[in-house]
């Protein structure tokens, strides 16, 4: 989670007083963090860059409603997470990045495009991350986002709930469902000692 720069509030006051260029400092300060989480959720570089731009645009437009209860970093982070969630929710079902032939979403078996690649070879070659990405694409947008925030971004349940605009219990269940599905789909690749 992005943490607040000490002078973010001063910058925001300057922006609201008419210093538009001051927003550039906030953009430069938080762009990298936003791109990182946006990429992890969308899994796509171009989409992540779009999410970052849209998040800062939306943040500027809503800057007057920004209340100093949270840091600007947290606030803009949540905007980016929701933007990324919207982005993957709007993706068409036949997105080329999805695994072909996945007729049953509850089907546990992961079908990769290159069937010539055996799971054990994937593990040995360290390509489990690629397979994980394919498995993640079969999660629902909310599950995927919740998992990324929990597992990768190390957000608490409350932070996930706030970012997704859902109840903490719903956020926790989204994380549970995502992990169950991923474990189930990655089970064939598990190397037993």
């Amino acid at each position, binding site marked *: 989670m992005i943490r607040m720069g000490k002078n973010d509030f001063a910058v925001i006051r300057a922006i609201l007083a*008419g210093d*538009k260029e001051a927003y*550039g400092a906030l*953009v430069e300060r938080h*762009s990298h963090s936003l*791109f990182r989480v946006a990429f992890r959720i969308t899994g796509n570089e171009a989409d992540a*860059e779009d999410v970052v731009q849209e998040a800062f645009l939306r943040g500027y437009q809503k800057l007057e409603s920004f209340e100093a209860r949270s840091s600007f970093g947290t606030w803009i982070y949540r905007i980016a997470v929701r933007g990324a969630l919207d982005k993957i929710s709007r993706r068409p079902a036949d997105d080329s990045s999805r695994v072909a032939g996945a007729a049953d979403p509850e089907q546990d078996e992961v079908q990769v495009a290159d069937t010539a690649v055996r799971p054990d070879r994937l593990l040995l070659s360290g390509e489990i991350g690629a397979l994980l990405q394919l498995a993640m694409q079969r999660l629902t947008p909310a599950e995927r986002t919740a998992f990324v925030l929990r597992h990768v971004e190390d957000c608490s349940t409350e932070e996930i709930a706030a970012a997704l605009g859902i109840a903490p219990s719903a956020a*926790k269940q989204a*994380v549970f469902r995502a992990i169950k599905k991923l474990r189930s789909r990655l089970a064939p690749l598990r190397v037993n000692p």
Partner: protein
Amino acid sequence: MNHLSEEELIEQYYSRDDTGAGGHLAACAECAETYAELKSDLAAMQTAAPPARDAAYGERVWRSIAPFLPVYEARKRSWLRGGAWRGLSYASACALLVAGAFIAGRVWEHKQIQTTAIAIPAAIPQKAAPPQQRLVVVVLSDHLDRSERLLVELKHADTGSEEMVSPLRDEARSLLAANRVCRQNAKKNDDPALAAALARLDHLLVELANQKGGLNAASLARLQDEMNSDSLLFEVRVLRSRIPDQQPVANNRRNGGTI
């Protein structure tokens, strides 16, 4: 022994604090094994690292969005200008409304005065006179009541008692002014009987009120004789008796309609 669910194990894995499952995991080999598998799976779930962005990435993002961002101050100023103009418009409209209402009120008032001025002369011969009479009658009624009481007290006054004399003198003084008004009005209304009676009453009241050296037994006795010789009390009673014939007027007075 109840084993931990997968949800509880996942919560234990991500929890920053001990969820209470730690003790069970230490005691239950089966759950510990399951938890070890979970940890292994989750540890293997390492997503691909995001592509690196150079140091100028933030600046590029800023340049891409900057043209689309309005200046807050400009928006506020324009809003303030708009607000100021709106305020001035409202103020002007209110001022015009007040001025219009004021002028209309003055015009209406002026017309009302003219109408009244025109209407009164025509109404005076028939309608304006009676109210004047009613007013006099009301005053006369009260005046005669009070005068009658004074004369009765004077008639029965103990000439040797100073305590009785003093209130008579005070009452006589207070009746003098009203008596003169009634007397003048009786003359105006061509009522000689009333005017004559009030003239005699006036004389008595003057003497009663302004007796030189104060009222003494001798002067009181003289005034009593004078009153009896003039039959003033009887005359006042007769005049007072005429008042019931004008009871509606009295009612009007009680009702506050006359005055």
